[in-house]
């Protein structure tokens, strides 16, 4: 066994003291020691010229870093709403029973640690967990029994995976049980793609013409906000003269219910990396960064091997695709468990090796991005679509879709439907026809765009999936009649409370207040004025928060109050001004026990 000093020294040396390698250093230490103890933090701080407080800040920020030992086998069980729908609670109880410890704890012998974690991008095959980086899907209490006994016998986790998923999940280097579940292929992402075709076409044009072509296609960002991609590249290019510019691919995919980037990363990484090269060529960057969420670490080696192969094939590196002086290479940076790192400026902070807290905007990343250089941050799907634009031409691409939404959209469908998975649809199809295809026609509601999106009632299923009518980053959670909506809403609020970065009060405290008010109503202690106040709090958090997380986190409550008001009203106490949740007997119980007193009631 190496000492803490040796472990830290090795990790720091590997990064060559590069501050942007900080998360790698901590990850190495965490992996080697099973936690990041105080002493390690002090040593890393000393090695990197930072303070111990800086290290405290970083380690405590990310979910997969821990001061306390997480267990030789660290089980991270997804607690998203869909996981719960699919039987997560029984699986969790089975883990507790078999392991002999509760969630949030590690067994006394330090072998097994049980931890909750936010959505891991496997909603189509829940309940799912990540154990030492390896994904386990479709869990049942019986499977848990087996897994725990194998852990007890000291088996390597990779050997516990017996059946592999379809497509490249089963390849020698991935060997994962994750399934693709591609249900419908469309003309942009899943149409045949010939390696090299996009970047070769791009380098035959001038960078300005590439941007022009993307503008003609009317491609808009697929990460959620829908910003026109050509315009973003143009801004970045305009700022890049004499500066080091960057292309950053946002593969954080943290919105509960989306998993389409996972499938692209598995099946089409070449198309994605070509899209990044096209972007690099257009904006004048020679470096690309793929920011990959830690939950997808199981794809890391594979993705690196693809990059290697592309370097060998002259699709990356010097004089890419034979174009003189177009040098472009891509590196992968892993996250460490934080939804907020999907927000582009938080992502940049995280990629620089810091706490993933959003920056003030402006300046926008196009002006001041990674390490201060002009940076275009684009979603995985956007970059693939850009590669397709090169192949098809902007005009052809623009023919697909609706007036303001062109091309296709990958939808991650999960929840109460028969065929969960990935659907590539042309913009403009109705929500109802998607539901019909996915086997969820009789849904009561669909959460469009994940928790930060909108809870759409059946009456609006005729609306079109598009930026103008029903915008979505891709998460489509189908909710069947009979489900308790407020339980789902509550799960979403747990998520936001957990994932708020804590920088600003309206979001840090506001989401807690929202959840408490919701709980009061769920406990049937709410009154009409509580419901009115709940709606007011939604407005406060939405308008006062600093970044997109807090600006959208009230949506689960706000949109269900709007569309499913009766769900709330049926639980209110009518004709009462005020109901307190306070329970005096319970409040004094602990003191009485400690002081050895018999509690008395008023007017003793």
């Amino acid at each position, binding site marked *: 066994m190496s000492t803490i000093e040796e472990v830290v020294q090795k990790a720091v040396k590997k990064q060559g003291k590069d501050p942007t390698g900080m998360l790698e250093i901590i990850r190495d230490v965490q992996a080697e020691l099973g936690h990041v103890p105080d002493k390690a933090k002090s040593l890393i701080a000393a090695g990197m010229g930072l303070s111990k407080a800086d290290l405290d800040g970083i380690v405590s920020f990310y979910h997969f870093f821990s001061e306390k030992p997480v267990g030789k086998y660290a089980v991270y069980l997804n607690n998203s709403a869909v996981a719960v729908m699919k039987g997560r609670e029984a699986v969790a109880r089975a883990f507790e029973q078999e392991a002999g410890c509760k969630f949030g704890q590690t067994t006394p012998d330090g072998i097994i640690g049980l931890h909750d974690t936010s959505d891991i991008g496997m909603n189509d095959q829940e309940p799912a967990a990540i154990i030492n980086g390896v994904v386990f899907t479709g869990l049942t209490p019986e499977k848990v029994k087996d897994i725990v006994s194998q852990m007890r016998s000291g088996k390597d986790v990779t050997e516990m995976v017996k059946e592999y998923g379809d497509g490249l999940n089963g390849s020698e280097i991935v060997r994962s049980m994750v399934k693709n579940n591609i249900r419908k292929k469309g003309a942009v992402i899943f149409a045949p793609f010939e390696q090299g075709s996009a970047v070769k076409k791009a380098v035959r044009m001038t960078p300005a013409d590439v941007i022009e072509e993307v503008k003609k296609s009317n491609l808009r960002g697929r990460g959620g906000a829908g910003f026109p991609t050509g315009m973003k590249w143009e801004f970045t290019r305009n700022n890049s003269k004499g500066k080091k510019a960057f292309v950053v691919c946002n593969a954080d995919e943290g919105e509960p219910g989306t998993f389409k980037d996972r499938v692209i990363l598995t099946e089409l990484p070449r198309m994605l990396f070509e899209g990044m090269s096209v972007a690099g060529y257009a904006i004048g960057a020679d470096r690309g960064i793929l920011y990959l969420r830690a939950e997808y670490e199981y794809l890391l080696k594979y993705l690196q091997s693809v990059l290697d192969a592309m370097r060998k094939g002259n699709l990356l590196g010097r004089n890419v695709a034979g174009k003189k002086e177009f040098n472009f290479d891509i590196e992968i940076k892993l996250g460490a468990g934080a939804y907020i790192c999907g927000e582009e400026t938080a992502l940049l902070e995280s990629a620089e090796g810091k706490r993933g807290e959003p920056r003030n905007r402006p300046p926008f990343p196009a002006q001041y991005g990674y390490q201060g250089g002009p940076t275009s941050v684009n979603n995985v799907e956007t970059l693939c679509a850009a590669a397709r634009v090169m192949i098809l031409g902007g005009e052809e691409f623009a023919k697909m879709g609706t007036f303001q939404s062109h091309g296709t959209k990958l939808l991650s469908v999960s929840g109460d439907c028969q065929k969960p998975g990935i659907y590539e649809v042309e913009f403009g199809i109705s929500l109802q026809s998607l539901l019909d295809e996915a086997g969820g026609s009789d849904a009561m509601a669909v959460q469009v765009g994940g928790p930060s999106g909108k809870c759409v009632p059946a009456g609006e299923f005729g609306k079109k999936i598009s930026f103008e009518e029903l915008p979505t980053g891709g998460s489509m959670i189908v909710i069947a009649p009979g489900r308790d909506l407020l339980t789902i809403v509550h799960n979403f609020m747990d998520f936001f409370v957990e994932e708020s970065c804590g920088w600003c009060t309206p979001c840090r405290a506001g989401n807690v207040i929202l959840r408490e008010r919701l709980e009061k109503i769920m406990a049937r202690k709410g009154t009409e004025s509580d419901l009115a106040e709940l709606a007011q709090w939604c407005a406060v958090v939405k308008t006062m928060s600093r970044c997109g997380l807090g600006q959208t986190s009230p949506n689960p409550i706000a949109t269900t109050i709007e569309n499913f008001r009766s769900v709330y009203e049926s639980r209110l106490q009518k004709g009462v001004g005020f109901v307190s949740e306070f329970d005096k007997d319970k409040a004094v119980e*602990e003191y009485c026990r400690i002081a050895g007193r018999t509690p*008395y009631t008023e007017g003793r």
Partner: protein
Amino acid sequence: MGKPVVATVSMAGCFGCHMSLLDIDDKILQLIDLVEFNKSPIDDIKKFTKQCDIGFIEGGCCNSENVENLMNFRKNCKILISVGECAIMGGLPSLRNGIPVKECLEEAYLNCLTVDDKIIPNDEELPMITDKVYPCHEIVKIDYFLPGCPPRAELIWEALSALITGKKLELPYEVFKYD
């Protein structure tokens, strides 16, 4: 109509809000012309002797006595005002909310350097300590909130006189500046 009746109480607070009330200086004479005081430390009336109009609450609830007191105020006053940070948010006393009651008691009565007869007080006469310090509005309905630590004398005066006279409350920026 007789004069409006005011009751006041200081619970888990420091009496600072009451001090601030007294800090209205000579306006206290006007106040006495305007209102009648009932249960209050100001006149030392210990029990409600009649139904009151306004209850002025300083401090949150850190024990059973506070809770009973507050409920009693709710029963006996038409309007309740949470005055100051402690009543509104729990204030300084609520700094203990992150620490288990057991640890607080042990630190105060067993481990602290200056205690000698190490015993956690358990006399039946003592109020029972609550698990947390609660802001008043979590226990009863509160009608108005006067922020500040303490709220300035002018704010208290303006608010009380607006309530009594029914005039609109003027709140110039200065009144809401705290340091």
